[in-house]
């Protein structure tokens, strides 16, 4: 796992400042401000429609914001394609529906971007791919097609695919929501190990037990606004806001 660069703490990996995002007439994000430090793990939660997925997708430019600033590792995200490309080189993304390329083998899925985008030599790309497949504990599946793997295995391949680009930040958009219950844990284990090795992570998830164990900061969003930001202990035992309490009681009180 790539070690976090030896720079000063307090260097923001991601800085989101007063970001607004509209879909036509509907406003998905209202003046969202968030700062993620290097090596920090942030978990974003909230009811559906709160804008948490939209926020994550704005960070790597899959959605464009109308006002405010988003700065990743010192590069500001603008409508200029160059800035988008540079940021995507440093940010890895894992989707809820895996989005593996079904017509390519697992190995080809992992080596496509390093070879085509980072101009890495084929042999080195394959070595890197096998290394990360081993990290997610499924090296023997390298020559299978995604359709032949279980959901949990596919999502682990998706994580390995993002890691093959050696990103500084990893974004997770509800990575386990599409999985059968018995496969959720294997994916969470991989994510926990990533966290322990010092990766900067922003994660949208409903898995509160997982959040509690790995998060440095919990963020609660509702209706496009950040309602509360707190450490896990404070967030789960003594939430300040009424809406946070209501949400937690619905999720955990079941």
């Amino acid at each position, binding site marked *: 796992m790539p070690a976090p660069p030896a720079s000063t703490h307090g260097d923001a990996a991601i800085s989101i400042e007063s970001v607004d995002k509209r879909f036509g007439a509907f406003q998905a994000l209202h003046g969202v401000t968030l700062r993620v430090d290097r090596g920090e793990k942030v978990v974003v939660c909230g009811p559906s429609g709160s804008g948490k997925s939209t926020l994550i997708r704005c960070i790597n430019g899959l959605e464009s914001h109308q006002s405010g600033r988003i700065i990743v590792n010192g590069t500001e995200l603008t409508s200029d394609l160059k800035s988008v490309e540079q940021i*995507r080189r440093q940010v890895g993304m894992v989707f809820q*529906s895996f*989005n593996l390329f079904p*017509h390519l083998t697992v190995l080809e899925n992992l080596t496509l*971007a390093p070879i*085509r*985008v980072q101009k890495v030599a084929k042999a080195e790309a394959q070595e890197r791919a096998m290394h990360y497949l081993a990290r997610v504990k499924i090296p023997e599946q390298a020559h299978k*097609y995604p359709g032949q793997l279980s959901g949990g295995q596919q999502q682990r391949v998706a994580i390995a695919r*993002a890691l093959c680009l050696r990103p500084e930040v990893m974004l997770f958009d509800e990575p386990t929501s599409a999985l059968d219950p018995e496969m959720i844990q294997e994916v969470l284990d991989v994510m926990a190990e990533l966290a322990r090795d010092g990766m900067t992570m922003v994660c949208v998830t409903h898995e509160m037990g997982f959040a509690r164990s790995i998060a440095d900061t919990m963020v609660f969003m509702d209706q496009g606004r950040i309602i509360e930001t707190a450490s896990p202990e404070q967030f789960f035992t003594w939430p300040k806001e009424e809406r946070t309490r209501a949400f937690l009681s619905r999720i955990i009180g079941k």
Partner: protein
Amino acid sequence: MAISKTGGWSDPRVRGAVYQVLAVGAVIAVGWFLVANTIHNLSTRGIVSGFGFLERPASFAIGETLAAYSPADTFGRALFIGLLNTLLVSALGIVLSTVLGTAIGVGRLSVNWLVAKLATVYVESVRNVPLLLQLFLWYTLITQGLPGPREALHLLPGVWLSNRGLIVPAFDWTSLSFTVPHLAGFNFQGGVALSPELAALLFGLTIYTAAFIAEVVRGGILAVPRGQSEAASALGLSRGQALRFVILPQALRIIVPPLASQYLNLLKNSSLAVAIGYPDLVSVANTTINITGQAIEGFAIVMAVFVAISLALSALMNWYNRKVALVAR
């Protein structure tokens, strides 16, 4: 649900057998009625049934032939010439319309607003007007609108367009060189000439079919799940790289079946040649039927040929589908 052992109307097997006997019986009865009338009518007109007429001399000329033919040749040979003409215009049409259609289909998805709108205008105008109308327009444009060979339009080196058709250089296989046509007297010598009929038919078929192929290609690209292009973007692939490595390979699987059916449509549409005077299979068969009166046999031959080609194309496509099917457990 126990099958009634005693048979009778409540037994589905008995009912099924009765229905089939009734259906087949009805078809046979109607067929018998039609056949009896036909035999009677044919005999009163002095027409002999059977395929013997294929050996008789055709005694009509055919304007364009890919192989040697004279009016002294048999009807069978004439039909064969017609078939070659059909295959020629279909093969050329398929290649040209695929190239044009793919370009337009991708153009409709272009980021450039002007290009996308132009492609849309093209597709909507061509698709909503009958092919025959377009063929008449191109044919009349060529025969009435273009100048004579002496003032022919010089489009490219060695390529001339006039109201006598399109002339392109001929490729000589023995010497592996091009023979460039040149004007001699009232017309061109050398080179390969596409008659106005063939040129109009080919041009019209290409333009028309390309519009439908454009929609098939566009539909195929749009049918690839959005998550695929998002994942490709998130990995940093450029739009061109995403198209080439992720979108198009998956789109091809979706595109091939409807694309094959468009090719079949082009083949069937080539039969409109009869309306502008190009001697394709249907046109020659029609002339043959008019001369010999052997309508049943003539139509049977035409149907057999077209159905054979359709089945061959279906089989080819099924093979291709199985070969590229996404591997799943």
